[in-house]
């Protein structure tokens, strides 16, 4: 158990945890507020990764800079999707339960549409780019620069988002709409606009996470699904509707899966599911649920 191993696990755990937190917060915004269980969420992660890849390969744009491009593009895509598809479904459903079921199934169709457009347009081959992959010496140990930078940016994004949700007016509007839509409307919050905004914000977070992932891993049009599964586990772990719960849940799950990955790689997903099942059975409102 060398110091290097401990640091490796800690840093990887933090990075993965941060990425899971970002993706899960996105899904939580979409389900907890807009009430859409967006099964295609993982595909937006993939789209973010590919946008960053192409920005780097074709235009030579620094991947960290492309976070600024990626975010708004994905926000617009998400907003557009909500306005065209999910808002229509919501208005034409008799009850919220019906809407939840239909929107989940519709998002499954969306998953296939996005994934196959990506497969047809960009090809099924694995792609990767090298960015800052030189080693850095820190405290007498070597790490890859891109992982440290990814860690830094993930934590910065999470901090920014946390401050936004907790302290800004829009953030408070979002939390109000998540808690009780009718009361939020009574307070003068434009709830339909907030729902659309949240959905877009959710895809933005997915895209940004994908961007960061692309710096460290290979990308392929099929990479999204596993991230969706993890996001759903974190969603349940932190409590649906509790954005901050997803933040901490993501970090915790990231840590746990990284540790398991070092011990017995094939079991990391299995462990995640077992945690998932246990939470669902014994505390479905989430460990930090409302």
């Amino acid at each position, binding site marked *: 158990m060398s110091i290097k191993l401990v640091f490796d696990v800690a840093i990887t755990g933090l990075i993965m945890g941060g990425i899971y937190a970002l993706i899960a917060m996105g899904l939580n915004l979409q389900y907890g507020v807009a009430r859409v269980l967006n099964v295609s969420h993982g595909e937006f992660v993939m789209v973010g990764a590919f946008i960053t890849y192409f920005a780097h390969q074709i235009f030579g744009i620094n991947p960290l800079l492309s976070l600024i491009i990626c975010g708004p593009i994905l926000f617009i895509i998400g907003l557009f999707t909500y306005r065209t598809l999910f808002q229509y479904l919501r208005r034409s459903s008799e009850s919220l339960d019906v809407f939840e079921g239909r929107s989940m199934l519709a998002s499954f169709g969306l998953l*296939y549409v996005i994934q196959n457009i990506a497969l047809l347009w960009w090809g099924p081959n694995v792609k990767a780019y090298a960015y800052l992959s030189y080693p850095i010496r820190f405290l007498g140990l070597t790490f890859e620069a891109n992982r440290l930078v990814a860690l830094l940016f993930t934590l910065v994004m999470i901090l920014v988002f946390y401050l936004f949700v907790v302290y800004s007016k829009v953030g408070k509007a979002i939390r109000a709409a998540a808690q009780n839509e009718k009361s939020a409307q009574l307070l003068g919050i434009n709830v339909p606009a907030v729902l659309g905004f949240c959905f877009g914000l959710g895809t933005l977070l997915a895209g940004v996470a994908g961007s960061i992932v692309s710096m460290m891993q290979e990308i392929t049009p099929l990479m999204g699904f596993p991230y969706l599964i993890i996001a759903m586990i974190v969603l349940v772990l932190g409590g649906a509707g509790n954005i901050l719960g997803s933040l901490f849940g993501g970090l915790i799950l990231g840590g746990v899966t990284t540790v398991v990955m070092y011990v017995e790689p094939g079991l990391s997903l299995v462990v995640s*599911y077992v945690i998932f099942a246990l939470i669902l059975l014994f505390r479905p409102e989430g460990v930090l649920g409302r």
Partner: protein
Amino acid sequence: MPPYTPLAVTSILMYVVLTVSWAMFCGPTRYMSLATATFFGVGMYTSAVLGERLPFPLVVVCGSLVSFSIGLLTGFICLRLRGFYFAIFTFGLNELVRNSVLWWEARVAHTVGRWLVLIDSMTIYYYMLAIVSLTVFVAFLIRRSRYGLILYSIGEAEEAAAHIGINVTRYRIFFFALSCLFMGMAGAVMATKWAYIDPRIAFNPVLNFTPVLMALFGGVGNIFGPILGAGVLTLASEVLLSRFPYYYMLLYGMLFIVIISFLPDGLVGLTRRWRKDRLIPQAGS
């Protein structure tokens, strides 16, 4: 008859079994189970493991029994869950089983894919025909009996049903497991058609959602709805597959979205609306 015909029809029969058995429990009770692929896959793996040792009919029976048992276990575990949580639990269950089987096959059995004893396509066709008939017959019997009413009452108002003395627990577990039994039976037979299975093929997530879509497309309040939905959609997807081999999945996804958006009550619902006959509410309304 061109050799493709029994293959195509067998495919349709498979989807009919999956859709009818999904709708058997999930239609009246309005629980959305997204674990169809799990029980189908269990049947497939039972067939792969036992196929060389036992005669085929016995393999099919074993497949259905193993699926039934796991269905009982799942139903028992899920008792506390409703609605959204039930749906995502079953969704996650598929992934759990898939990854566990993958790990087991890699670490313990050292063989990630499995080959199956080949059976000629006409035999497979007859088996599937028998299974479809059995499934539809059982679904019909259930719907016409007091058990059908019990399931509907669970769907309408579970607490009220429990209060008037219906043993909701027992019926939930049993009928969920019964629907899984038919899925496993179909899986045991279809494995021999596909000849090679691995966890990704056997527990394919698409197979979780497709029967749900087909049931909703056809309309869930009626015995013919799922059959119609499965038949029409499978035929449509076979046509799409042969005409547009590259765009097939894309068109399929779009079809999904269109159906969900514009056909909330399914095909049967169209005629029902036209006949103004809505005695039994549809699932999801």
